[in-house]
């Protein structure tokens, strides 16, 4: 009984660490000037952490880390509108990655990640479409799709290598 509580506390502490890491990477990424000046295109490095938590712990745990990251970034430099963008993108991304994690039985994480990034961009694009209400922005779709597939693949590879090296002992 005692050890069960201990492991719960340990897991909570580890998840809190991942949430802090995810937020830190997210904050750092906003400081890097965007190499491609197209709204909605960025590397999405903080998703590496979400992927690691999803594949090592599960969907519930990853949702928790994502929620903490969203709330922290909104509190620190966000507006309600920017929270809407990142929340819709982040949640769609996690749901798609969760489904593909199951469908692919934990294999080919970079494929799941690419689809996740696509879903993220699609979600943000839909919010942008609703906010701006101008059909001209539809031109962005293929650009956002290409960017999502490439960045998602790269962040998926990062997560793959981290998961390989990450000691099993911190997750049990």
């Amino acid at each position, binding site marked *: 009984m005692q050890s069960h509580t201990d492991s719960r506390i340990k897991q909570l502490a580890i998840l809190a660490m991942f949430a802090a890491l995810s937020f830190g990477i997210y904050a750092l990424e*906003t400081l890097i000037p*965007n190499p491609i*000046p*197209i*709204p909605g295109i960025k590397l999405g490095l903080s998703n590496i952490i979400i992927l690691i938590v999803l594949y090592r712990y599960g969907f519930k745990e990853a949702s928790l880390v994502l929620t903490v990251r969203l709330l922290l970034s909104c509190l620190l*430099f966000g*507006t309600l*509108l*920017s929270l809407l*963008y990142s929340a819709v993108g982040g949640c769609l991304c996690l749901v798609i990655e969760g489904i*593909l994690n199951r*469908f*692919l*039985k934990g*294999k*080919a994480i970079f*494929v*799941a990640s*690419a*689809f996740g990034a*696509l879903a993220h961009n699609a979600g943000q694009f839909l919010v*942008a479409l609703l*906010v*701006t*209400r*101008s059909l*001209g*922005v539809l*031109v*962005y*779709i*293929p*650009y956002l*799709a*290409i960017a999502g*597939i490439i960045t998602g693949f790269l962040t998926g590879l990062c997560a793959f290598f981290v998961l390989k090296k990450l000691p099993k002992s911190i997750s049990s």
Partner: protein
Amino acid sequence: MDNKENTKISENKRIFIVSAILALMLVASIVAVLVLQASKNNASIAIIYVDGEKYTEINLEESEDMTLTITASNGSHNTIEIKDHNIRMQSAECKNNLCVNQGWAKDTLLPIVCLPNNVVITISGPTNNDKEDNSYDAITY
């Protein structure tokens, strides 16, 4: 043993299917980008949207050089510049200035978007009604 082999095959099949869908989407997107780039030439009508409403429409071929300052509903200002029949966001009071960094609209073909202030500049070819009438005539006669 046999059962294990089967699950292995279906696993690979699943990875293959999902990867194939991804590859198809990538190819389709690249083709779409190439088509868009090819249609770049006749873009000359700039339409400015503020808060989802059409604010003004400018024919870049006929317009003279000028700047235009817009006050967004959140109180921020965006200054749009028209020069040499091209249009850009010259300056903007927004967080990351992505809209300014997008540069000239005709060079990118993409709409210039300032999401924080909800200002959008799209450019497109002229919606030439005469042209369409002509082709219609050609068919009927």
